[in-house]
């Protein structure tokens, strides 16, 4: 069932058993999980089914520190959420991502990879992926000519991704699940319902209702037994911080953790691979040529431990094109996400055209590595709220993105390790980009330092309320019926894209709430 909240009377009251705030990847997948249960589910979405710039403008905010994308255009506020821009890349976190590593301050999840495995399999289904198998061996039997580089896999191995058909070019999860949600008898979707405040009981131990508004000036009060925040890492933190009438520091923020530890994936052009001879494989085809699978070179757990580095992977793109491609941090700077996408895609087309005439000789066997690497959890990298209010009267979110020396040293060493293994294999040589060549410089970053639009860590998990916002079940510490879904719960960022893991974690949360409510 769907209601456009702009058509409701002012101060309407809506009641249900569970209220999911946000209809992006996390919110939609949780809602789907509740279809055909005896419970009434309220699903709130800030936007509508199509892009609405007035709603999108609520996401505007300032950024400081390391250069970042405009906050307005780095997420999407509509049904389906940021899957409307999603590249569809799915791969599970590695076991090492969950354990405490003594060289990575504030690392360690209160759950293990094994705890999440059953939910990864379910997430695979929800995201319309193939079998829950991410080993190269499996995919080599399914797809011909996936020949890996002859590397020592105990040092550098081939990590596989599956590409979801629910990617942005297909309209995101909205395309696949809008009808299911609208037809579900026990799911009530309310669009144009931006939650601006969360109201707790007098002791601030239970959430009683949330207040939503829209640009018509109307308010809606939503009551439920359980509330799940699923608006993305930046917006979830913003909402908790802004809900400060009863808890001056914000809900769930007695220990000043909400908003801190904002993490991105650094996605930077780091080195070149020059092959001596053509290497026959479809394993590293350019992204849009094989929209089912993707492969990147990964560093083994043993080597990460020995070298005390973060987890990262390196993907290939043809060097002749890469040399003409500007970093995304440059081409994605328009606050209107539609224009940023257009700029990005137009620029890629231009780069490909320029490369056509140059792709001969040795350079036709050359590639650029883009390294995607987790960022070390840094409490000074954070989302805060500022004095400026948006159109609905809610304080805007500001982002201060901060990196550490471990981030840079790790990127360098990942590429050096890959370079040595490529050399050892005899297939070619690797050249590190200039910004990585001075081994004493772990502070400066090049102009082209991209994030991946992966927002993580702002409501991190920990069993200790001094160190986390949510516990191992994603329940907010100190609040009986408030939970957070999504990548904001990650204590560490892992190497691969976050969507598969955030859906897995959200389904795990969904099971937890189902057990509680039953």
């Amino acid at each position, binding site marked *: 069932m769907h209601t456009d909240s702009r058509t409701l009377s002012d101060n309407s009251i809506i009641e249900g058993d569970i209220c999911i705030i946000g209809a992006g990847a996390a919110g939609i997948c949780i809602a789907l999980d509740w279809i055909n249960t005896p419970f009434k589910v309220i699903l709130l979405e800030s936007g509508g089914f199509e892009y609405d710039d007035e709603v999108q403008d609520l996401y505007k905010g300032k950024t400081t520190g390391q250069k970042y994308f405009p906050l307005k255009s780095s997420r999407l506020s509509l049904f389906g959420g940021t899957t409307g821009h999603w590249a569809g890349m799915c791969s599970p976190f590695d076991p090492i991502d969950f354990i405490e590593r003594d060289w990575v301050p504030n690392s360690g999840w209160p759950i293990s990879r094994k705890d999440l495995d059953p939910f990864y399999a379910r997430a695979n289904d929800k995201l319309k992926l193939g079998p829950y198998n991410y080993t190269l061996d499996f995919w080599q039997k399914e797809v011909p000519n996936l020949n890996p580089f002859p590397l020592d896999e105990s040092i550098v191995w081939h990590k596989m991704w599956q590409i979801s058909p629910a990617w942005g070019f297909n309209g995101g999860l909205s395309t696949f699940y809008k009808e299911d949600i609208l037809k579900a008898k026990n799911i009530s979707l309310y669009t144009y319902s931006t939650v601006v405040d969360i109201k707790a009981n007098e002791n601030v131990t239970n959430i009683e209702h949330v207040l939503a508004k829209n640009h018509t000036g109307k308010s809606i009060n939503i009551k439920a037994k359980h509330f799940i925040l699923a608006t993305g890492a930046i917006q979830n933190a913003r909402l908790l911080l802004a809900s400060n009438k009863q808890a001056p520091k914000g809900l769930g923020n007695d220990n000043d953790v909400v908003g801190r530890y904002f993490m991105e994936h650094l996605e930077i052009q780091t080195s070149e691979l*020059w092959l001596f001879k053509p290497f026959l494989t479809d394993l590293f085809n350019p992204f849009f040529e094989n929209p089912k699978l993707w492969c990147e070179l990964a560093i083994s757990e043993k080597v990460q431990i020995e070298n005390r580095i973060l987890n990262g992977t390196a993907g290939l793109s043809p060097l002749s094109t890469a040399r003409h491609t500007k970093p995304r941090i440059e081409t994605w700077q328009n606050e209107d996400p539609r224009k940023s996408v257009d700029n990005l895609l137009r620029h890629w087309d231009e780069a490909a055209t320029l490369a056509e005439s140059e792709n001969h000789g040795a350079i036709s066997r050359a590639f650029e590595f883009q390294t995607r690497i987790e960022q070390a959890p840094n409490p000074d990298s954070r989302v805060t709220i500022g004095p400026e209010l948006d159109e609905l009267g809610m304080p805007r979110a500001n982002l201060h993105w901060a990196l550490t020396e471990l981030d840079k040293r790790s990127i360098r060493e990942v590429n050096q390790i890959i370079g040595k293994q490529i*050399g050892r294999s005899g297939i070619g040589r690797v*050249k590190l980009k200039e910004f990585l*060549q001075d081994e004493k410089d772990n502070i400066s970053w090049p102009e082209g330092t991209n994030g991946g639009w992966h927002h993580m860590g702002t409501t991190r998990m920990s069993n200790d309320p001094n160190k986390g916002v949510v516990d191992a079940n994603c329940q907010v510490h100190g609040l009986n019926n408030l939970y957070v879904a999504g990548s904001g719960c990650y204590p560490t960022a892992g190497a691969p894209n976050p969507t598969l893991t955030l859906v897995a974690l959200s389904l795990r949360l969904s099971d937890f709430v189902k057990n509680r409510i039953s």
Partner: protein
Amino acid sequence: MKRRKFLFYGTIGMAALSIPMSCQNFKDVVYDPNLAQAESLSMIWDTETIIEIGTHYRKLVPDENRERTLVKLLEETDFGERIKEDFENGQTIMIDGWILSITEARQCALFSTVNHQ
């Protein structure tokens, strides 16, 4: 000047003149030119790059800045095997960002001693 002294000083003078010429003879090291051919690298680099890398290597490792020294280090080497072992044993060097085996870097260095830019 008395003749003996002249002859003595003359002899010294002759020696002084001839010693550099003798050194010139030592400088002409004879070796198989293949020692200086980094075969794999020549598939991805032009001659200029090989010389550049070789020159950088000699600056980074001043003890190996002489042709004779490099020849001695490279003589009787099965380059294919040695380069692979270098990578396996961590005998690598980064020059201008390139991750190279020490052996092939020395080959470039040797090449650069006789092919200056």
